[in-house]
């Protein structure tokens, strides 16, 4: 950040809390720095913002906007944790559960899964509102060290951006349109690509769910020591304010 940008610092509010920001920051970036957590799934530190999952939707100036792409503005009053927004986020997350096959009890990502953790944070105690689509997606275990279970994919596109922007490869891409849009590999299967286990796109931190799996790791980390056993998703951001 240049000295000039620092000088252009300003403040805005999220749910009445004053947040410091500077020009070029998004609402989410400024909120994160200030210790205010805005739920998100498709956004991930170090990857370009995409604004597609809409879980980070906030109200700014009376409009619904994606906090991960919306620039912070001086004096803006942003609403984050209102009953309406929380319900909308819960519905979005619930729809993601219904769109795929998310069997938490037998998923090796359980406890490390951001979708599951988000459901807990948003108090999604039962998923009964929408019909289950129950897609039939074959597991791709062709790669010697990585497996893809796209039954659990939420089309966040984090792997696409990581592969393109960080790894410089393009192992993944979107195919289809509308509700049929999904992440696919650029090849017959994963073994047909230049994917490597050391790729950033293949890391467990990039895939928020149990879709991209490191083979033969499985349940090696016991229950109680998994990421979200330590606290609700977003707790590490909120702890900055304490």
């Amino acid at each position, binding site marked *: 950040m240049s000295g000039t940008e620092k000088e252009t610092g300003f403040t805005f509010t999220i749910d009445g809390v004053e947040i410091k920001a500077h020009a070029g920051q998004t609402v989410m970036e400024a909120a994160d720095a200030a210790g205010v957590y805005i739920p998100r799934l498709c956004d991930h530190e170090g990857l370009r913002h995409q604004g597609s999952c809409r879980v980070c939707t906030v109200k700014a100036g009376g409009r619904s906007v994606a906090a991960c792409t919306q620039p912070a503005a001086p004096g803006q009053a942003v609403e984050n944790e209102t009953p309406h927004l929380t319900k909308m986020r819960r519905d979005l997350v619930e729809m993601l559960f219904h769109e795929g096959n998310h069997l938490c009890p037998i998923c090796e990502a359980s406890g490390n899964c951001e979708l599951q953790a988000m459901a807990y944070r948003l108090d999604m105690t039962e998923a009964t509102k929408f019909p289950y689509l129950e897609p039939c997606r074959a597991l791709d275990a062709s790669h010697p060290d990585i497996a893809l279970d796209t039954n659990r994919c939420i089309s966040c596109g984090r792997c696409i951006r990581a592969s393109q922007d960080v790894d410089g490869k393009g192992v993944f891409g979107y195919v289809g349109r509308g509700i049929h849009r999904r992440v696919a590999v650029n090849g017959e299967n994963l073994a047909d690509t230049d994917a490597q286990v050391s790729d950033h796109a293949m890391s467990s931190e990039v895939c928020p769910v149990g879709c991209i799996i490191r083979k033969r*790791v499985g349940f090696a980390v*016991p*229950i109680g020591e998994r990421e979200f056993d330590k606290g609700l998703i977003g707790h590490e951001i909120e702890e900055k304010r304490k």
Partner: protein
Amino acid sequence: MTEPRMIEISPVTRVEGHGKVTIHLNAENEVDEARLHIVEFRGFERFIRGRLMWEVPVIVQRLCGICPVSHHLAAAKAMDMIAGVDQLTPTGEKMRRLMHYGQVMQSHVLHFFHLAAPDLLFGFGAPAEKRNIFEVLKEQPELGKRAVLMRKYGQEIIEATAGKKVHGTGAIPGGINRNLPLERRDHFLSNVDEMIEWCLDAVKLARDYTLENEDLVSEFGSFPSNYMSIVRESDGALDLYHGSLRALSSTGDKIFDQVPYTKYHELIVEDVRSWSYMKFPFIKELGPDVGWYRVGPLARMNTASFIDTPLADAAHKELRAVTSGTPNNSTLANHWARMIEVLHCVEKIRELLHDPDLQGTDLIAKGDRREEGIGVIEAPRGNLIHHYKVDENDQVTYCNLIVSTTHNNEGMNRAVKDVAIKHLSGKEQITEGLLNHVEVAVRAYDPCLSCATHALGQMPLQVELFNAEGGLVDRRSQCI
């Protein structure tokens, strides 16, 4: 003389899973046929195909909510073999054994006190509203309290080793994912002696019931059969976690002994009948008519040469003395055998808690990958076989499960028929209390019908009455 009838008991209660009994009476009200039907279907053997090998122990344990640890460990043992691991690290094996002993303890306690005790304490023909755990708690509060706390102890052992009391993730291919922290060990040690005292009382209760009701026990659903279990490889001792296959005839002659369980398919084949979703296994060399066998606590008391914990061994010797060392064929003696095993498990738990290997950090062994794995364990209800094949991509291509209740299918059917003939034949009025006698015979095997069919469905069992032409005359259903 009356019209021929068919009675249907549906569902059979205080068992795990959904099943029914049908009893065919002829014109003289004599029992022509009686069968236990398992009416649920689940299909785990099919839908596990394509899944990744390390997921298997976590997925297949969902067969059951009472004995998931048994499936978890049997599958993990099969996956050890596929991972090329023939010997776990000391911590890995001992943590798994601790988990298993906790599991057998809680499952047996659940069966004896919560499911069977109402029959034993109040009588098989007692009013239906009397035959439940709440009446046990009301009339014998100390016994009821112990039942709850003993089960809690076993469940907490499971939680400490698997991460959850039900459906944990402790066992992974090649080992275990945790050790036992000292504070947990000290917690369990603080009341393990009390647990042993309570187990001794439970053994006495079951023994006294068996001996004081000798006439009933010796005739109720009792018949000679073959018996099978794994026993310890070196000396034939009772070993619930690992060993070789041993089968004895009803007179104690060895049919096979110390056969590696990886050869189970050379010894056992499964028969299919049109009226049940549960298969009928039998010993290949003897054929289906005489080759059927029983498994479970009493079978293990019959097959084991001895028990390697002193208190349980003394109890074992006392049970064996009743039949002068030959196999005990009394279905109801399963309850006594079950309590001896609970005592054995708690003795083993105490032994393990004093072993520093439980705090070891070498949790996983590695080896050269294989394509096929077989895991066999003695589950609470008896011998449990898991068999898988995995391709080069780590995906399951084949799965065969033979669970305890399936092994016991022929035995349970014979027990149902035996009790129906002895207690229902010739009676014009078939009361609910009389029908409960049939259920008591089924219940003595502590069947897990969900496991046996690897099936989806609701819990309870029903009795059907058919006329001589095979028409359904009457049906009795019971709800838990």
